[in-house]
């Protein structure tokens, strides 16, 4: 796996990204911005489902408006994150904290998808079931966890 990372790092277009300061900074900026928007919009939906925002209004109606932006921001964060990862893939791949971050993100995505299906399945629902609230709480927990894992990569591993 480390050899794969080293191979990726030495691809010509990856080296160009890594060595072009304005390009790398731009990618970093978009990664942070879309990450914040993605987590923020997901949190807004979770707060609605948990009854901490927009009480008395149908949950699905609100969530349906937010989800396209959330997933749009997510995919932009994934693309820019991959570009940043590629420039130092040889060091990121074996790093434990990086692997924890990817695992936490995967869990956050799974719970968010489950929540989205649960919410969209009952369009007129104003009262949310305990199971759906649990999904929202887990989604919230893992998205916050992904931010923590992200900052720990720099603190513990010195990467990024």
């Amino acid at each position, binding site marked *: 796996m480390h050899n794969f990372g080293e191979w990726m790092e030495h691809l010509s277009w990856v080296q160009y990204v890594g060595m072009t*300061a304005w390009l790398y*900074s*731009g990618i*970093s*900026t978009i990664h*942070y*911005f879309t*990450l*914040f*928007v*993605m*987590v*923020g*919009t*997901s*949190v*807004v939906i979770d*707060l609605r489902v948990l009854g901490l*925002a*927009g009480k008395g*209004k149908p949950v699905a*109606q*609100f969530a*349906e*408006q*937010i989800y*396209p*932006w959330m997933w749009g*921001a997510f995919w932009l964060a994934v693309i820019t994150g991959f570009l940043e990862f590629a420039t130092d893939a040889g060091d990121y791949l074996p790093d434990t904290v990086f692997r924890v971050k990817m695992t936490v993100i995967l869990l956050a995505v799974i719970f968010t998808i489950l929540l989205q299906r649960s919410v969209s399945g009952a369009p007129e629902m104003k009262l949310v079931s305990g199971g759906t609230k649990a999904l929202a709480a887990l989604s919230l927990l893992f*998205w*916050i966890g992904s*931010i*923590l894992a*992200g*900052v*720990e990569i*720099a*603190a*513990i591993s010195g990467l990024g």
Partner: protein
Amino acid sequence: MQAPIHTSLMPLSRYLQMTSWATGIRTSLWVYPFIQLIHFSGLSLWLGTNVAGDLRLLGVGKQPQSAGDVRDELFVWNWIGFCIVVLGGFLLFSARATMYIINPAFRTKLFMLVPVALIWHVFVQAKTHDWGKSGIISVGGKAAAVLEIILWLSVVTAAVEIPNFG
């Protein structure tokens, strides 16, 4: 000739940095990342609610909830996010105040971009109902939403550049 702002703020920066709590943040392996988590989590809530409102102003999203209704619903969480950002940001700044205050990217972010973006955000928040009153968002409203997104993107750009000037 007036001294640059960072010169006049250096004594305060030194004082903040030498407080016991700022020293604790700076020297602890786990506290500093935790404070970053607070700052970034607040930023997520702040930017997420801002952009949700701006995109609704741009006509993205389904009816019948108007742009004004979206803003109203997110208002409290928007400003809670801002308070968390400020708290986390202040603690991060205090830990290394003398380094941040001389950093041109940090100064651009805090003393120029954030105040402009914040003032614009308050203006957009106040005017959203007017722009969407007829059910169709005016060109001015859409332009205001685009400008807000650009301003907060500029703030994040300046923040990303801070380590490059450190």
